[in-house]
């Protein structure tokens, strides 16, 4: 069809490593909400340690695709496999899946009744049965990684949007996920706060975290992406390395990139 897929020549380390099997695979995924076909045969793969950036207009299905990966949405047809979990199977262990996949949302969704530290300690303690002292240590470690060492005892409402988002990233990191999903995590932030959140994500990328992010930050996408997916009308319309953003092969991506300027 219209799909234009480039080979993965752009990644310098692609042929250096052994041909590892992808950590996330979507095959022919369909999803509809009522009469709207949101995902119309989405297929892509994500390799371990790679950063995949999904771009596209609102309504193109990019957030839905992301939410299907950790089964916040159930798909109608197709296959999704994440870290060995068959996400499309009714018998998949949701708990095991969510232990492997972290997600950060546009609206942060920190728990307002808990401090930053308590927000971070909650899930390791409850879902992974980590002891209190160990959980606290873990919390301080991830808090330091996102640069919030002086905010551990603060409640979310006492933090700026950028700080809240970094705390949310830390909360997700504390679960030591194998894959992290970022759903338009800077869309609610002004440019300055966006910068501080993107720097944290960049450091995660440098640390080898497997990440899939839906974003409107084109400059950032060019910078960190190993793979760029352009979604349009519920499909992966164009796919390749970050160079496709300089030299798009389809008129739709061309148009999308121009409208972004």
């Amino acid at each position, binding site marked *: 069809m219209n799909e234009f897929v480039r080979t993965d020549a752009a990644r310098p380390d692609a042929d250096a490593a052994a041909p590892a099997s992808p950590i996330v695979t979507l095959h022919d995924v369909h999803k509809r909400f009522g009469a709207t076909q949101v995902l119309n045969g989405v297929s892509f793969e994500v390799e371990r340690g790679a950063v995949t950036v999904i771009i596209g207009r609102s309504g193109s299905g990019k957030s839905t695709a992301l939410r299907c990966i950790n089964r916040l949405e159930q798909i109608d047809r197709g296959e999704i496999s994440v870290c060995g979990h068959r996400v499309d199977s009714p018998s998949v262990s949701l708990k095991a899946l*969510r232990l492997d*996949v972290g997600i950060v949302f546009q609206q942060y969704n920190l728990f307002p009744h808990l401090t930053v530290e308590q927000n971070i300690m*909650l899930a390791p303690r409850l879902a992974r049965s980590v002891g209190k002292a160990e959980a606290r240590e873990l919390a301080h470690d991830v808090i330091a990684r996102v640069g919030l060492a002086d905010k551990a005892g603060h409640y979310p409402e006492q933090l700026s949007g950028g700080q809240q988002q970094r705390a949310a990233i830390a909360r997700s990191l504390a679960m030591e996920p194998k894959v992290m999903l970022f759903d338009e995590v800077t869309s609610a932030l002004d440019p300055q706060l966006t910068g501080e959140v993107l720097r944290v994500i960049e450091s995660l990328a440098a640390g080898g975290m497997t990440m899939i992010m839906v974003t409107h930050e084109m400059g950032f996408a060019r910078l960190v992406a190993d793979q760029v997916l352009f979604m349009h009308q519920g499909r992966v319309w164009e796919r390749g390395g970050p160079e496709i953003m300089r030299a798009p092969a389809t008129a739709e991506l061309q148009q999308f990139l121009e409208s972004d300027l």
Partner: protein
Amino acid sequence: MFAHLNASQLQFLIDGALWTVVLSSIAMICGGMVGFVIALARVSPGAGLRRAAAVYIQVVQGTPLLVILFVTYFGLPTIGVTVSPLVSAGMSLTINVSAYLGEIWRGAIQSVPAPQWEAAECLALTRTQRMFRVVLPQAIRIATPPTVGFSVQVIKNTSLASVVGFVELARAGQIINNSIFQPFSVYLIIAAIYFCLCFPISRLSRRLERRRGFARALPELEVFAHE
């Protein structure tokens, strides 16, 4: 004006007021416990449980408390269960209060934004953990002002227990009036005592309403933050 009220009569009124407080407390505590179960059932994933709880709320809210009192006090003995006025009043108020609190608390639970559930789910918490560690602590803060406000209604509703012969404040006033026959002053005193019981509570409710922020009121929150 009140010169005719002697010390033992005054004592009788104070005892009545104490029984009003006791009955209100029973109603709030027992009604609260049943109401909590009702609220959880109303938001449970099981459709049958949700519907059963909804029917309970509809039936109880659609029945006058007075009639519930008649059913428990005069109705139960006909099937061989005799209950004292206190038990009858406590039971009836519990039923009544549970339906209202169940509905208030259901609303509070459901007004916790859905993304909070979602975030907790994505952190691999079980449904019970999500409810008790993430949603309920927030719902409690939302529910506190209307719950405190509702307790004022409960205090006033306890006066209905006088119809089954339970001597609370209103009934105590009636009894005294029957002997001294000064309805105006006696019932004004009764009204004043009810007001003294209710006013501080409605003030508290309004104050709680004003400070809804999460960072303030830290001591209460500590309860949920640590085990």
